[in-house]
């Protein structure tokens, strides 16, 4: 009886909770608050916030793999066996597990499995959804099936605005490396690249790249990416107004030409072909995006197109959100690095917006004033929020100025642009 009570007491959260876990539970609750009350990207931030709380339930180890469960259980014989497999003293098992890789890591996992330790629920979700890389790609397929690229096809030059906005990514990469002069920061090139992709303003791309280049930072990167995407209406307008004149913002643009069905069908295939020829490392992202779009535009597989737009993307979003949340464990998230990531992410959005607007100004000049430079801001992607912000700022300057359709071109170009940037980073850093 006493034994039972003690077992229960030892198993209780309040007997084990650490201050870091309390903080992370509050962070999770904060994300849920932002999602529900402020409408911050609720489809992702609500599951992420909930996953964050679950990942920080003390004792339960929902986000731990089998080896983590073994450590949590603390059976001396099992700890000894693990220490032997990893070739470290029992006292240094924590670090030993963290730094194990290759054969040692495989053997540690097999040992834990053989001793009866199974991975926690969230760890399993993470392994299936993100570890495999599949979930962000399926989301990207859904994005392709949900996106109408007509505006881009009608005016391909807006692709350059989507290109310019990627400057946010690469300048943030430098910024992350520069942060290393501050003690406490020690980002590798791979980690800096994963952080920089926040500037792409594209959730699935960020999660995909982070899962390949810096899985430990994935939680902070995803939270930053989605939070700033939700903050686009606050972040972008001041920069847009600072860099443009009132008369530039007033420019009304010519109506876009209609796009034929055949062009819409050929578009995804054309993008895929260029990706195949010039940037195979972007093939998973570009491939699934264009596949989804072809399902949509082909007109002969409506069943599949609707499945990609609804059932699949919804189910995957739930699991993806919980999986991202699983990376918000206290010991990984509560570090000075996370603060750095949040700061760098904000900078990335600002710089990307500025670069897009400046390219817009250049096109404004070159086109003899036909292009409203505001639409460059939509090049960061954050579809369709950024395009709506452009529309709103345009309307403020001129009540007859409807820029929404014109901003959709750079907006979807930004999706392609950041997938290309991700491909470059994977090819150079992840190779």
């Amino acid at each position, binding site marked *: 009886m006493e034994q039972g009570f003690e077992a229960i007491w030892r198993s209780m959260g309040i007997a084990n909770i650490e201050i870091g876990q309390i903080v992370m539970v509050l962070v999770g609750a904060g994300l849920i608050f932002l999602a529900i009350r402020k409408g911050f990207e609720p489809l992702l931030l609500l599951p992420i916030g909930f996953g964050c709380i679950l990942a920080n339930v003390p004792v339960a180890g929902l986000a731990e793999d089998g080896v983590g469960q073994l450590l949590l259980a603390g059976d001396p014989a099992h700890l000894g066996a693990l220490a032997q497999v990893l070739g470290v003293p029992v006292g240094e098992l924590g670090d030993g597990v963290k730094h194990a890789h290759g054969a040692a890591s495989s053997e540690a996992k097999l040992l834990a499995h053989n001793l009866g330790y199974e991975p926690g629920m969230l760890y399993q979700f993470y392994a299936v959804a993100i570890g495999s890389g599949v979930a962000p790609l399926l989301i990207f397929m859904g994005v392709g099936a949900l996106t109408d690229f007509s505006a881009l096809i009608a005016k*391909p030059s807006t692709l*350059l605005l989507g*290109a310019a906005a*990627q400057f946010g990514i690469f300048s943030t990469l430098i910024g992350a490396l520069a942060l290393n002069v501050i003690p406490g920061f020690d980002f590798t090139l791979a980690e800096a690249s994963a952080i920089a992709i926040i500037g792409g303003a594209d959730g699935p791309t960020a999660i995909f790249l982070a899962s390949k280049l810096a899985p430990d930072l994935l939680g902070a990167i995803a939270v930053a990416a989605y939070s700033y995407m939700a903050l686009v209406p606050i972040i972008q307008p001041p920069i847009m107004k600072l860099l443009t004149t009132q008369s530039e913002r007033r420019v009304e643009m010519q109506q876009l030409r209609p796009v034929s069905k055949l062009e819409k069908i050929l578009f995804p295939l054309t993008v895929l*072909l260029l990706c195949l020829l010039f940037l195979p490392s972007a093939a998973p992202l570009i491939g699934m995006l264009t596949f989804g779009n072809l399902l949509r535009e082909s*007109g002969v597989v409506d*069943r599949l197109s609707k499945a990609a737009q609804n059932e699949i993307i919804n189910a995957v979003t739930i699991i993806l959100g919980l999986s991202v949340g699983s990376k918000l464990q206290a010991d990984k998230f509560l570090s000075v690095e996370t603060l750095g990531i949040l700061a760098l992410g904000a900078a990335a959005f600002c710089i990307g917006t500025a670069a897009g607007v400046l390219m817009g100004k250049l096109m404004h000049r070159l086109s003899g004033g036909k292009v409203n430079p505001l639409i460059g801001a939509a090049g960061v992607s954050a579809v369709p929020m950024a395009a709506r912000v452009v529309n709103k700022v345009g309307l403020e300057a001129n009540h007859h100025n409807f820029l929404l359709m014109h901003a959709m071109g750079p907006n979807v170009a930004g999706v392609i642009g950041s997938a290309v940037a991700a491909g470059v980073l994977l090819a150079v850093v992840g190779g």
Partner: protein
Amino acid sequence: MRHGESVMNTDLLIQGAELMLLGMGIVFGFLTVLVFTLRGMSLLADRLHQPEQVHPELPPPIDVSDHRQVIAAIAVAVSRYRATHGA
């Protein structure tokens, strides 16, 4: 050691700068090529347009499950017609 670290970090920064140049170059290069390819694609599509007219039997986007939508739309249309024409 501190000195070695800072050398290392400078190396890393140089690598980062190279990656920035390379990356922006490829992003702009790729998307510029795409601009021209898309223009070519549109021209091609325009030429192929006539034969397309010959096959107008491509399946319509409305599927059976939308039936209810159709009924709703018809009902709304009918009621508007009545409202307008005093039925």
